[in-house]
Structures are given as C-alpha cells and as structure tokens.
C-alpha cells in the first residue's frame, strides 16, 4: 500500500483532511496484526480504545494551525510508561494486571498533540537487559531475522518501528535502551539531554540516568516526537526549568561547519569490524558535506561500563524497594509483613532483576559504599569531564552504537557480563546526561552473516542541550546513506 508512511506525513495528511485519523489507525492495526506473529513485540493492544479515539479526532476535525503535531499518528509506548487505565507491567510478573490511575506527562503530551496510542511495547523486565529476553511475557524478535534479538531494553518499540508496522514509538534509555535496539532493528533512536523530557509516569529504574525518547523510521520523525513530548514539567524535579524543544526548523541546515570528534576508545577493541568500517565510511561521506572529522580521546571511557552498572544497580535497588505487594501488583501473603514482602518480591521479580537488586544493595551497604558506589560516582564525574573537555574542541562526538552487528536469541541470556558489554558504547553518554542519537548508517556486507545483510547504527553525541544539533547531524547521515535501509518484514508489509 502506498500512502503517508512517516509520522510527519500522516499528521500532515490528517491535518489537511487528505487522510482520516480513523483510516490511519485502522491501517496501523492491520499492519500490527500482520507482523506481530513474527516479532512478538506487543504486550497490550487495545484496538477498540484506539479506534474510539481516532473516531473522536476525526469527528472534531483537524486542530487550529500550529497545533496537532501528531494528529492522527498511531504510536506505541514502552510498557514502563503509565497510561491511565491501560495495563502497564514493565515486562514483569510483579506488575501483572496493574492499571495506572494517571497518565505519564509524555502520554498527556502525545494525546494533546492528537497522537493515537495503539498499544504497549515489550521490554526487558524493568528495563534491565539488552535483548528484551528478560521480559516475563515473551521474547521479541528482530524484524531483520526472527533468529536475532531486537536488542533492548526497548526491543518491542524498536521491532515495531523496524518492521514498518508503526512510524514511531516511545522507549526509555538508562544505559542505551533506546539507541542499542534502534541500531539492531534499523530504526532511529534518540535519547535526549537528561532533564528535557519529563520522567513523570515513567516507572523508575536508575533515576539519574532514565530518559524517555522516541524510536522512529526517520530522524525527522524522531525530532517531531521529541518536539511533542519534550519541555519543562514541574512534576519531575529533574526537569530543566524553562526548557522548550526547538528541533524541527533547523533539521535541514546541514553540517558544513561542524567539527566531529571520534574517540579512539570507542572505535577499537571488541567492536565488530563491519560496524567500525560502516561508521568510518559514513564519516567520510559526512566530511564531503564540509564537516571536519578529528580523532579525540576520552581517557576515562574504560571505566564507564563499571561505573554505569554499579551506579545504575544501586539506584535500581532503591527504586525497586517500592514493590512490596502492599499498594499494587503481586502480593504473596505470608504470616508476617516481612515474610510477605520477601515472598512477594522473590515471586514477582525475574532472575536478572533480583541479581541487579542484590548487586545494588551490596554496593550501598555499610562497609562497601565508599569502595563501590562512591567510587562509581567519581568515575562518572571523570567521564563527564572527558566529554566537557572534548566539547571545547569539537561540536559533536561520533561512535558506533552497538559493538555487535547482531545478537542471537538466547546467545547472551545466561551470561550477564557478556550482556552488559552490549552497552559499552552507549553508557558514556548516559553517565554524562548527554543527548545521543543512533541513526542507521549502512547495511552490513552480505558476506559473513547467516542472517543476511543487517543494519548498522551510528551514534552521535552532543553537549548538554545540543539536541537540535545532534538531530541535524543525524539527518545529514540519513541523507548520505548509499542505500535504503528497510527490513525484509517492512518490505513484505508494503506488498500486503
């Protein structure tokens, strides 16, 4: 079927009256129905609710000029973002059946811009994982090959976009959970500057890292979604006062005067050769547009992975203390409250979540705090300082997003350390709270992969609040790609 495909096209067509929100929603539901059996990406779909909302939007007609950024656009939301009355489970048995009594700020903003939420997307349990396999509900599969993981933790959102079923979805990124699955599924994934998108209504994992952001088929749609959901929110104490996103107007301004730094530490050991080659080739194309590319150093990057995991697990152990069976979710009733808490938590949490809670509890406990948690925070500060220094010389930093070209289903699930290494290239920006975008830059060579050619993600990081520049550079990467990056499933969908 040929018609508006990107979120911007759908919203534009719906605002002009050339497309009805109802048709756009019916089309999205049909597409979801077609791909879900292959990718298993959805936790909850409420077709009736989505169609009712679309019918209401169609009845009310297009909004006044300048409003309705997402008018008629079907969107999925990661299963850890609260939608009033809709099951929100964080991929965990602990929250089976939980229906939030309120909307997250990002959900309110999507609705106020005319967006239509069609379902919730699968994820690693409480966003703890890099393959979406720790979900209590299902194993999501990669739209490029069902034998591959979509990455994680926002693997459901990435697979839905990569499959061509939806133009965009929301994810959350703590140490790379938007960018890494976007890279593996051939989607665009954007983690905005920490504090630019409200975390109100996002179930907390690591509060000083967590950031909601868009996954989309194009950089333009990523910018559109960020424009819609970003901005100050008094209900999030870490929201940046006065911040208003302004990322769409300058998207086409080009990057001819931009200086790009490429950290030696993020381009070498442990990274798939095909990934490094694709990123270098993309940088050469960008140079032809007038950008300058220079090598830089991030001397403390080698500590980033350890610092991230110690700090994030510590925050997780504290944040997840709220799941005690008293107010919501699972409750395993025992003879005392202490026994009830322990039995509930042991029954409700999966293996990886329990392990991270244990590690975080250890790092925060008396006698170990200074050696682990405090040390991790100092390392965090040093990684952030490396970036601050780098940004005195360059405007942006570029590296691969994922060190691996692909991850087989089941390949890493029993090896936590191997799983953590999947995040090696995304955690530095998370530690420093920087805006970071993954944009598909090429397909892998046909040789060497039993699963065929696979998408490769290039990561662009900028100084705090340089979100517009990061997206602008991502758009330039997109425009200089030598070929289209469309998954077999998405191609198949176009013929339905």
């Amino acid at each position: 079927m040929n018609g508006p495909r990107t979120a911007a096209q759908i919203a534009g067509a719906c605002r002009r009256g050339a497309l009805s929100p109802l048709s756009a929603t019916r089309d999205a539901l049909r597409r979801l129905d077609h791909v879900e059996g292959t990718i298993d990406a959805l936790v909850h779909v409420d077709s009736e609710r989505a169609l009712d909302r679309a019918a209401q939007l169609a009845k009310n007609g297009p909004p006044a000029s300048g409003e309705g950024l997402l008018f008629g656009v079907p969107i999925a939301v990661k299963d850890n973002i609260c939608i009033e009355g809709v099951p929100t489970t964080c991929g965990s048995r602990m929250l089976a059946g939980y229906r939030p009594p309120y909307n997250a700020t990002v959900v309110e903003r999507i609705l106020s811009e005319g967006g239509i939420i069609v379902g919730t997307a699968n994820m690693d349990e409480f966003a703890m994982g890099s393959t979406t396999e720790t979900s209590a509900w299902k194993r999501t599969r990669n739209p490029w090959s069902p034998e591959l993981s979509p990455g994680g933790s926002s693997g459901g959102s990435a697979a839905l976009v990569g499959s061509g079923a939806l133009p965009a979805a929301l994810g959350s990124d703590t140490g790379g959970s938007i960018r890494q699955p976007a890279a593996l599924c051939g989607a665009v994934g954007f983690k905005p500057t920490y504090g630019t998108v409200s975390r109100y209504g996002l179930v907390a994992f690591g509060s000083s890292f967590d950031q909601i952001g868009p996954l989309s088929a194009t950089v333009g749609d990523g910018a559109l979604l960020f424009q819609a959901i970003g901005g100050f929110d008094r209900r999030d104490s870490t929201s940046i006062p006065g911040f208003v996103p302004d990322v769409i107007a300058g998207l086409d301004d080009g990057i001819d005067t931009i200086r790009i730094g490429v950290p030696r530490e993020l381009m070498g050991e442990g990274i798939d050769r095909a990934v490094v080659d694709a990123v270098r080739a993309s940088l050469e194309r960008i140079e032809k547009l007038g950008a300058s590319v220079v090598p830089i150093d991030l001397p403390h990057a080698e500590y980033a992975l350890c610092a991230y995991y110690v700090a994030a697990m510590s925050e997780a152990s504290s944040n997840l203390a709220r799941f005690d069976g008293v107010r919501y979710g699972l409750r395993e009733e025992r003879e005392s409250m202490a026994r009830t808490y322990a039995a509930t938590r042991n029954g409700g949490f999966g293996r990886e979540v329990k392990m991270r809670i244990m590690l975080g509890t250890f790092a925060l406990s008396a006698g170990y705090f200074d050696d682990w948690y405090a040390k991790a925070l100092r390392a965090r500060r040093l990684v952030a300082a490396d970036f601050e220094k780098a940004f005195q010389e360059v405007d942006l930093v570029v590296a691969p997003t994922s060190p691996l070209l692909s991850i087989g289903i089941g390949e890493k699930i029993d090896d936590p350390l191997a799983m953590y290494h999947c995040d090696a290239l995304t955690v530095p920006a998370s530690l420093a709270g920087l805006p970071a975008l993954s944009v598909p830059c090429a397909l892998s060579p046909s040789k060497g992969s039993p699963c065929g050619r696979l998408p490769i993600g290039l990561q662009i990081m900028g100084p705090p609040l340089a979100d517009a520049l990061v997206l602008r550079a991502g758009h330039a990467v997109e425009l200089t790609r030598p070929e289209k990056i469309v998954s077999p499933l998405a191609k198949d969908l176009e013929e339905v």
Partner: protein
Amino acid sequence: MIDHKEIVNIANLASLDLDDEEVTLYASRLRRILAFFQKISDLDDENEEGDADRGNPLLCKERDLCHEGRLRPDRIEPSLPPGALLANTEFSADGFFVVKKVIE
C-alpha cells in the same frame, strides 16, 4: 570474596526470599560480576576533589543543567482520588491499604 553467608545477608537487606539453588547461582554470578567491576578500584581519582555526589546529576550543583530551588514549598495540592489509588489492590478497606499487624 563474596560467600553464601554474605549472599543471604544481602538478600535479607533487599527483602528477597531466595531458595538454596538461587543462593548458589547468585553467589557464583555476583563473584564474577564483582571481579569485573573491581576495575573501578584502579581509578586514579586522587585529584578529584569534593564528594562523590558531584557525579550525580540529581544532586550536583555545578552543572548548568542543575538548578537551585528544585523543591517546591510543602503545600497540599490536588492529587489523585483515594479510590483510584486503592483500585490496584484487593487488600483495602475503608479507604486504607490493609496489611498484617506489624507492631505486636
């Protein structure tokens, strides 16, 4: 470095009721992970002044992104209705969450 007794102690602190099989599994995995994390103890941070909170954007005051006055005055504001908040548990009565008696 970390033995079974310590795993049981951490599980108690974390309110997790692990069985013997889980204790064995977590002991082995935690040992391996902590051995890798040990790398941060090599970090030369002697010149890093001040407290560890500087690394945490939730707490730091130097970064441009962090502003003073994040805490609002302690005033009662409209909130969600109690009925909506109690709707996610079957253990409620008379507008309260019901738990076992904690103080004997």
